[in-house]
């Protein structure tokens, strides 16, 4: 009896201390790092944001935002205004930037009869965008759709992150998002992630480590399969590495064109593509374009096939840096010149998009600030 009492009291003290430490860590993460996840599983899209939820991200910038009734990082859709929908991933979502600093807010301030519907969602690839547009159209009728592309989008299209739908002749007829095994895992972890910022943060930290381990494993299996395949008699010969640049040219352009045609149909022909290329802002103090993957050319090529007007914002962003020395990408929390558009970049993009929107909506006499 006497010996078990100190043990049980020690055990309780240690357990309480650990619980208190976890609660303290939860509080610290919520203040300084991130809010609990607001993602929820979606059988079509993989996952989407919960409607009317707060999100805080502190990795690059430090921004607090709220999703609207559609689960978009945007304000409530106003029926009295003309709507322009912008589709894209985290850049369009204005990740790491407060809503008031986003390009959407700047455009709405300049063209006050227009409401921008921010259809951006972090980590989506072009195969998601037609579905996002379909859902937005259930509650509003956008007069114009803008597809905002940037480097990295084509990789999602050619690297197996999509479902390719083919007819009986093998012709590609549709491209849909692929619900990955990671999404299925997320679905199971949703209750924890939606209630704990600490858990969410730890999962995000573990993800790249797990991804690296999985891709290492897959690469090893691929090499083994190649080594033992009948096509290869030399066992020591290594498997060829995937050439993303060639895949973009051979497959990516046609796939993106197919998606553009799909969005164009959904937009009643009112679609424009805008993009910026891979800009290296700080290489030897100068700006350079990293064109290894030729994504800018691929965007243009796809838009040409789909007969959609295309605008390159790269010169605008570069010119802004050269004249002001203000970097449009990157944040104080991370490396400047790299990463998402920062508040300066959003303003530059907004200024570039205003005339494009005016041109396509043929708005006359709208006051510009």
């Amino acid at each position, binding site marked *: 009896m006497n010996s078990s009492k100190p043990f049980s009291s*020690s055990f309780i*003290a*240690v357990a*309480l*201390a*650990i619980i*208190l*430490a*976890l609660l*303290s*860590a939860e509080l*610290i*993460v919520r203040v300084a*790092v991130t809010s609990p996840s607001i993602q929820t599983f979606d059988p079509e899209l993989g996952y989407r944001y919960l409607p009317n939820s707060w999100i805080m991200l502190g990795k690059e910038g*430090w921004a607090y935002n709220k999703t609207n009734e559609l689960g978009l990082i945007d304000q409530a859709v106003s029926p009295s205004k003309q709507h322009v929908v912008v589709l894209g991933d985290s850049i369009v979502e204005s990740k790491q930037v407060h809503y008031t600093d986003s390009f959407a807010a700047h455009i709405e301030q300049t063209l006050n009869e227009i409401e921008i519907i921010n259809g951006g969602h972090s980590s989506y690839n072009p195969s998601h965008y037609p579905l996002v547009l379909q859902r937005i159209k259930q509650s509003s009728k956008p007069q114009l759709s803008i597809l905002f592309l940037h480097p990295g989008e084509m990789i999602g299209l050619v690297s197996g992150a999509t479902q390719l739908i083919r007819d009986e002749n093998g012709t590609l007829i549709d491209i849909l998002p692929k619900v990955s095994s990671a999404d299925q895992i997320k679905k199971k972890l949703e209750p924890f992630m939606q209630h704990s910022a*600490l858990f969410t*943060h*730890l999962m995000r*930290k573990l993800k*790249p480590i797990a991804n690296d381990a999985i891709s290492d494993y897959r690469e090893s299996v691929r090499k083994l399969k190649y080594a033992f395949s009948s096509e290869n008699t030399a066992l020591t010969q290594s498997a060829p590495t995937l050439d993303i640049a060639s895949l973009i040219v051979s497959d990516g352009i046609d796939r993106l064109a197919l998606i553009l045609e799909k969005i164009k149909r959904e937009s009643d022909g009112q679609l424009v593509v805008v993009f910026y290329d891979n800009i290296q802002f*700080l290489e*030897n*103090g100068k700006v350079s374009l990293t064109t290894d993957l030729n994504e800018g050319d691929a965007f243009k090529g796809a838009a040409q096939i789909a007969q959609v007007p295309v605008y390159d914002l790269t010169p605008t962003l570069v010119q802004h840096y050269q004249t002001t*020395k203000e*970097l449009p990408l990157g944040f*104080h*929390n*991370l*490396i*400047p*010149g790299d990463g998402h558009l920062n508040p300066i970049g959003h303003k530059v993009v907004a200024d570039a998009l205003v005339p494009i929107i005016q041109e396509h909506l043929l708005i006359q006499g709208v006051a510009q600030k």
Partner: protein
Amino acid sequence: MIFTSIAFLIFLSVLLASFIIARGNTTRTYLLLIASYFFYGWWDYRFMLLLFFASFTAWWLGNKMVETNDPLKKKRYLQLSLVISLGTLAFFKYFNFFVGSFYGVLGIEKSVFWEITLPVGISFYIFQAVSYSIDLYRGNISHCHSLTKFLLYVSFFPQLVAGPIVRAVDFLPQLDKDIRIRKENVIVGAQLFLGGAIQKVIFADTLRQFADPIFAEPTLYSAGTLWLAMLAFAGQIFGDFAGYSLMAIGIARIFGFELPENFRMPYISRSITEFWRRWHKSLSFWLRDYLYISLGGNRKGLHRTYFNLIATMVLGGLWHGASWNFVLWGFLHGMALAIHKLWETTSIARTFKSNLPTANALFGWSLTFLFVCLLWIPFRAETFEISSQFLQGMFTFQQGIQWYHTPSLAIFALLFIWHSLYIIKAKPLMSYPDVGITRFHTAYALSITTLMIVIFAPEDASPFVYFQF
């Protein structure tokens, strides 16, 4: 195998389990020796041979030194031991540098000569072997009869690759005591280890994210950003090295060994002399005892004292790495030490010190801190050109990108609070906050520290800066 890696945690867990199971001092000594060689061989198995060679020759020539009664022979054995130890260090560490510099003068391509791989931590363990030989010669210690114990003294894995530089007189007697895992040592050791991990993983690695890109291209950034980057590197190198030392001390403590303190809040120093009594203490005192005193110390007049100080610091700079930047860094520190010594002899200094002690302390701290931080620039910069670009940008109010890395600013604030608390409470660096009062406090402190490390550790963890030395 760095202390913050998964591989090391596995290594440590297996070693701890084996250590608990093993019975008797001899078995545990062998176990630690095998583990230490495995730890070192993890980098490159060939390095184990070098480590053994350096240890064995020091021990064997020590034997010879003790066996003879002839003072001249004794001296010859010491000289031979020093030539072998320091020759090995010079060959591996400075061959590329001197041959490269020589070829550079002749205008020959660098690729012509043989590239020597620098074995990790060679400067640390060679210095330990040298200290044993000199102490034995001077009669400060008795001879270590057991080769196993001596090999473990030189190779003890917590301090093998980046110090603290341990003296035989402090370490060897600990092997004669009862070596075992004790609960109180585990708790204190874990606290020290986690305290060091906080300094390395949170402080140093965060500040590195800010300092690295700016030291790569200083011409791109504004003067304000350059000044902040200088402070960031000052914090980084302190967090990195003091953190590593504390982790090493903590791990040794878990196994029941006491290692010497290596850092004592160096940035609160009020003079450059005080700084060197607080920064990398095990090296400073090594240089003082085995180099400065051997050169004559302050026994041969003022001029010779100044010369000895400068020469010691130049060699100390060169110890850090084979580069002219380190030579310059050491020379300027030596000059500062000499000037401070000269200043202390003047009547103005004495008057100032006695009549205005607070102003004197504040002025001394500001000057020392600024000087030390400015000299971190050539220490960190890859080349002379980058150093001069950095300094030029700072002092000409250079225009450019303004980057104020928010996490680094938060770390500056934490470091400032920590140092201020230290000044108020005057507690040594090694006394991790008094958490060992109750089980609840201990468990809470260990849990929250571990969680903070996991939460705030940057995704791209880096090796320790001092591994390269």
